[in-house]
């Protein structure tokens, strides 16, 4: 194990290490702790210049105020409406594609794989004008569908890479024996491959849920009205209205961040296994 386990070190060194961890953690999260502290501060505190001392009272109603005075709830709901179908669609398409890329040898296999991987890395700006025009022409501009379709299509690239690598690890013998028993390729996919993919599906779902939830650029380019705006552009618009009401901006930021953060802490194992795919091999 590297570095040497602290358990082998002398007691003072060990305690120094524990202390160092706590200090490092506080420094690392300092900007976030500042926002959390500000989000429960009262206006009076600001007026008397108490920015960083202990708050005189803990004003959790700042959070309620965000929901009451702004369309924050609507924005959150919009994000959910956009994110869920896009995640489901991308995973469905990519599972099919990943199966083909992992288990069949055919001309164009590598080319298709490179297309998905390479396409996944292009800068968004090179897609922006044509994709936006397409949405405008199809009458989808400023609707949920503009974002759902784009995210679905774009995330398919990353998901196909992921699924292909996962399916490659499943033994060919499984498919072979099913074929001997007379199953066709589609039955093999449905009843042999798919049931084995549950862990990969979960890992991928949490991962691209956060990617899509956190999208800002496409939300900025494709939608503009409050009725469809997701939470990222919504929050940024609210910031313009709130000007310097930092207690509201802070509370709003925390609300917007909460769903992906909660998801991460609940499904940590899946999340990290998805993210670190390929970091060891």
């Amino acid at each position, binding site marked *: 194990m590297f570095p040497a386990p602290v358990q082998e070190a002398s007691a003072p060194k060990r305690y120094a290490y524990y202390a160092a961890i706590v200090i490092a953690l506080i420094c690392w999260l300092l900007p976030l702790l500042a*926002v959390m502290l500000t989000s429960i501060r009262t206006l009076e505190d600001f007026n008397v210049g108490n920015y960083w001392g202990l708050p005189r009272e803990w004003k959790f109603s700042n959070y309620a105020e965000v929901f009451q005075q702004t369309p924050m709830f609507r924005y959150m709901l919009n994000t959910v409406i956009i994110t869920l179908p896009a995640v489901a669609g991308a995973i469905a*398409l990519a599972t099919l594609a990943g199966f083909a890329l992992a*288990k069949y040898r055919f001309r164009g296999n590598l080319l298709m794989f490179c297309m998905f991987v390479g396409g996944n890395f292009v800068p968004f700006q090179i897609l922006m004008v044509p994709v936006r025009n397409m949405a405008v022409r199809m009458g989808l501009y400023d609707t949920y569908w503009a974002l759902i379709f784009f995210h679905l299509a774009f995330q398919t690239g990353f998901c196909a890479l992921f699924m292909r690598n996962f399916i490659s690890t499943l033994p060919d*013998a499984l498919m072979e024996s099913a074929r*001997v028993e007379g199953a066709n390729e589609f039955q093999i996919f449905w009843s042999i491959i798919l049931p084995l993919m549950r862990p990969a599906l979960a890992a991928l779902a949490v991962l691209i849920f956060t990617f899509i939830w956190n999208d800002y650029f496409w939300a900025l380019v494709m939608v503009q009205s409050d009725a469809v705006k997701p939470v990222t552009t919504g929050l940024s618009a609210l910031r313009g209205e709130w000007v310097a009401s930092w207690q509201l901006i802070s509370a709003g930021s925390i609300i917007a961040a909460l769903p992906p953060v909660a998801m991460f802490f609940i499904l940590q194992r899946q999340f990290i296994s998805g993210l670190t795919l390929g970091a060891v091999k």
Partner: protein
Amino acid sequence: MNAPQQSVSLQSGVALAARRRGISIHLVPWIFLAPAVIVFGIYVIIPVFQSFWLSLFDWDGLSPTKKFIGVSNYTQLFQDEQFWTSLKNNVYWLVLFLLGPVIGLAIAIFLNQKVRGMRIVKSLFFFPFVLSGVVVGLVFSWFYEPSHGLLNTILGIFRIPPISPLSDEHLVTPSIIAAGLWPQIAYCMILYLTGLTAVDPEQIEAARIDGARGLKLLWHVIIPQLRPATFIAVVVTTIGALRSFDLVQVMTDGGPFGSSSILAYFMFQQSITNFRMGYGAAIAVVLFLIMSVFIAFFLRHMIRNERR
């Protein structure tokens, strides 16, 4: 990944099954691929070419006619001071962002201990990665706020005069990059933590018996074994650096006076704010060409890995 001897039997099996159904074996994978290839083609591959084509036109994005102007957008671009400022900032982003893997590795080594509660510590270090760019931007805007922000409050304790990171044209880009590094370091850290669990303990023991300690051990034994993690960390970091847009848009809108603009933001500003879609497309093409160097490098490495 398919072992060759398995694939042979697999192929004959496929042929057998397909013949029974009356479809050509060549068609089977394409049926599975078709939906993904079609949507990916429509939304990703074709638009890349369309942008190249569009960069040769003068177009406001609204009028039905586009005026063909050849390479004028590009000649104009290369004379545009804002373009060079943005390009220079992109280079800053690229270089400074490489601190991500370095600091990420340092934190990973620091945290790679089996101590009670370590799991939650690792999660707390990692979770900035799941915050959206908008939230990170707002968090750091408040942190940097010149009159009451926490940064100046802390500097004040050490009697350092206050700074205003986001309105000083020399400080602004490094300050935004620092905010961008926060989630990026977290990502690299988790890659390295995973990598460290796969390091061969016998090699470490052997090196220790040979007297290797600390940095020497790290450099000669550990880092070579972390190569896969390093490769991915560097790839996602360079791509992330060139892709960054959210933080600049949220924190400064490219200001003060365009000094923190980067190509991604400059492109957005020209096309959406100034209605110069052709010009914007030309900027996007330049950004794409820079990026394709890294994409090509990544694909080459990946193909080599496949062949091995």
